């Protein structure tokens, strides 16, 4: 890379654009790449273990009280791992809550600590300001409509877009980082009798433990929806080049052009 840069452009005109591109900084900084994959891994673990725990009681309530004797707000039409839960299925699934709970909390710690490093570094390095926060003139209903329309037409992103995020992308990433993740952590902690003994407002504000649990489910499902759309978008934009950018930080300009 350093050698390429040292070649004077006028001597190798044909290679000039390529040499300039290889001299570019990484598409994603090493810190963004590392934290991205750690959080991706821990989110998958949280999702799997969360679903396992949910299977032991696939019913939801609002307020403080809720059990099989209480009318449910809604139920999921799935079998359960507890015989006390009336599911309509003639069988009971094996109990997997032990390891699921261990895994859920261990991955939660990993995700939260990694997330804190990411956010702190993002503020210090200007990652949020430079890469994610849209400028005031960029945010308008018209601009948003244009991005949504181009997404709906399944237009492939231009080569330039490989180097930055479009408006819809910026807004969704900011929403996931600063709304959904904090909410899923809050609603999760609000279910802990130990945590709420020290911070009772954390659950009272949500309307009770069962409300917190129901909200935790919806926020988790929103994150899952984000994950599915995110992966689909990566696929449409060019799976190999986007994956390479997030793993190595490099973008092959020839392939993207």
């Amino acid at each position, binding site marked *: 890379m350093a050698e390429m840069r040292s070649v004077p452009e006028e001597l190798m005109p044909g290679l000039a654009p390529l040499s300039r591109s290889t001299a570019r900084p990484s598409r994603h900084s090493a810190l963004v790449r590392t934290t991205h994959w750690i959080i991706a891994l821990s989110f998958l673990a949280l999702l799997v273990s969360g679903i396992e725990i949910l299977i032991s009681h696939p019913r939801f309530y609002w307020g403080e009280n809720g*059990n099989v004797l209480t009318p449910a707000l809604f139920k999921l039409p799935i079998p359960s791992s507890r015989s006390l839960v009336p599911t309509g299925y003639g069988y009971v699934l094996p109990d997997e809550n032990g390891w699921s*709970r261990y895994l859920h*909390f261990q991955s939660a710690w990993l995700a939260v600590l990694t997330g804190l490093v990411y956010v702190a570094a993002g503020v210090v390095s200007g990652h949020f300001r430079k890469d994610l926060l849209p400028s005031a003139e960029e945010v308008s209903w018209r601009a948003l409509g244009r991005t949504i329309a181009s997404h709906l037409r399944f237009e492939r992103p231009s080569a330039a877009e490989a180097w930055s995020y479009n408006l819809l992308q910026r807004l969704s990433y900011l929403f996931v980082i600063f709304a959904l993740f904090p909410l899923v952590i809050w609603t999760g902690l609000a279910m802990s*009798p130990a945590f709420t003994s020290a911070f009772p407002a954390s659950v009272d504000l949500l309307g009770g433990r069962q409300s917190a649990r129901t909200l935790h489910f919806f926020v988790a499902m929103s994150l899952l929806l984000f994950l599915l759309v995110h992966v689909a978008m990566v696929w449409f934009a060019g799976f190999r080049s986007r994956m390479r950018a997030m793993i190595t930080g490099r973008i092959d300009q020839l392939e993207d052009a």
Partner: protein
Amino acid sequence: MTDLSRRKLIKTGVAAATGIAGLGVATGLAKNYGLIPPDCGGIWGIGETLNYASYRLLTNHSMAREFARSEISTTPLANEIPPLNDAFKKLQAGGFADWRITVDGMVDRPGMFSLEQLKSYPSRSQITQLACEEGWSYVAEWTGVPLSHVLEVAGIQPQAKYVVYFSIDPDWWDSIDMRDALHPQTYLAYGMNGGDLSVGNGGPLRMRVPRQLGYKNVKFITRLAVTDDLRKFGKGLGSASPEGGYAWFAGV
């Protein structure tokens, strides 16, 4: 070897050594301050230790949320219990008049208490929530004697660190650290919602630890053992829960 790579090597080495030393110091401090749970080994040890250590650091004086009488649930679910053994049935037939709880271990006055004796001590009530690890919950009024009172009567010795409690069901036992054992909301509960504690809900005597989940609130208590070393009980993991794959600390 170039200067740059040598400098990098030294830097990495120093960083690694500092990290390992820091981890060693942190572990030592954590042990001293009682921040390490008995099931700290194995692949889930890090998460469990972080959970329990944060609990110890954040909630030393915190009280479980208490509710208004109007918030008491009309459906205080009695969860499934293992089949009751003959010893239990015999005591039940006698109206639990012969129910005894043994207190032994690091106490000055080991002995036995009858239900009548426990009920003769100053009784306390709390309207708190019982939440199961599965996700369901109910609010109820619990009446009983604070565990701290019984421990005071028995005279706990200064080196004691944990109270291990046993159900009449030999497969069901658990333990809490001394700060939870002496917490004002930790009861040996014998009443619920103004009446006797039903068998389904753990009657005649249930451990009530409202800052932890339901499974820590063991039913049918017959023995308390005060100790400074949980390795002496069962497989040494602090309770029957980790032996069945569940965490010893049940505050989350």
